[in-house]
């Protein structure tokens, strides 16, 4: 398998689409271990005119979504999981600096544990090599998790 994914290739592993696709390129990844890449933000982003007029910056929720989408790549590149839908379970996130139009958000994610449909992982976002956001994350592939749950 290739160890990077361009903007078209990553769509096979990440089911989110415009206007909610929050990653542009996966520069390197190892299935089940890590995924790294970036998202370029331009003035054309749909949210900048409304968040906020006169002071456009990337909403924290979307920074978190970008980190979650990159972590998802580390899981959905595992055999048999291509394109599976993931859901968030628990996130603990810190936002350190505003991200503005023209910024390139570099995303680095690591899988700490992957078992029975649940992934524990970490993510960090950098702009110009400075940490701007970070999170401890728990995501799931519901299709797998549900197979392990009591039915009664």
């Amino acid at each position, binding site marked *: 398998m290739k160890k990077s994914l361009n903007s078209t290739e990553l769509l096979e592993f990440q089911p989110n689409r415009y206007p909610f696709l929050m990653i542009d390129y996966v520069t390197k990844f190892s299935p089940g271990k890590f995924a790294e890449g970036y998202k370029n933000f331009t003035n054309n982003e749909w949210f900048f005119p409304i968040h906020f007029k006169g002071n456009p910056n990337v909403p924290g929720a979307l920074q978190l979504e970008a980190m979650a989408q990159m972590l998802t790549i580390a899981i959905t590149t595992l055999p048999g999981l291509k394109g599976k839908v993931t859901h968030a379970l*628990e996130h603990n996130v810190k936002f350190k600096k505003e991200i503005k139009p023209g910024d390139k958000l570099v995303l680095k994610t690591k899988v700490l544990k992957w078992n029975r449909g649940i992934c524990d992982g970490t993510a960090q976002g950098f702009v110009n090599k400075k940490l701007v956001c970070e999170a401890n994350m*728990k995501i799931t592939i519901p299709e797998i998790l549900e197979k*392990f749950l*009591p039915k*009664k």
Partner: protein
Amino acid sequence: MSNKDKYIKVFTKSFGINKDKLKKDLKYNSISKWDSVGHMNMIAKLEQEFKISMEMDDIIDFSSFKTGIRILKKYKIKI
């Protein structure tokens, strides 16, 4: 620590409850913390505590505190 104490501890720690709550056979989804994520966390802690690896069918069947005692017998763990 006895197996029973270890078993109770996994439940009380996993779900943040007092052991009195276990007297009436606590069941899956009967409290907010024993949801899907809580279930998988609790199973992982049991596996770690008793050094076992549970089969998928047993994880699905593990629907209450009392049922768990029966299931663990399969793994030669007497509570």
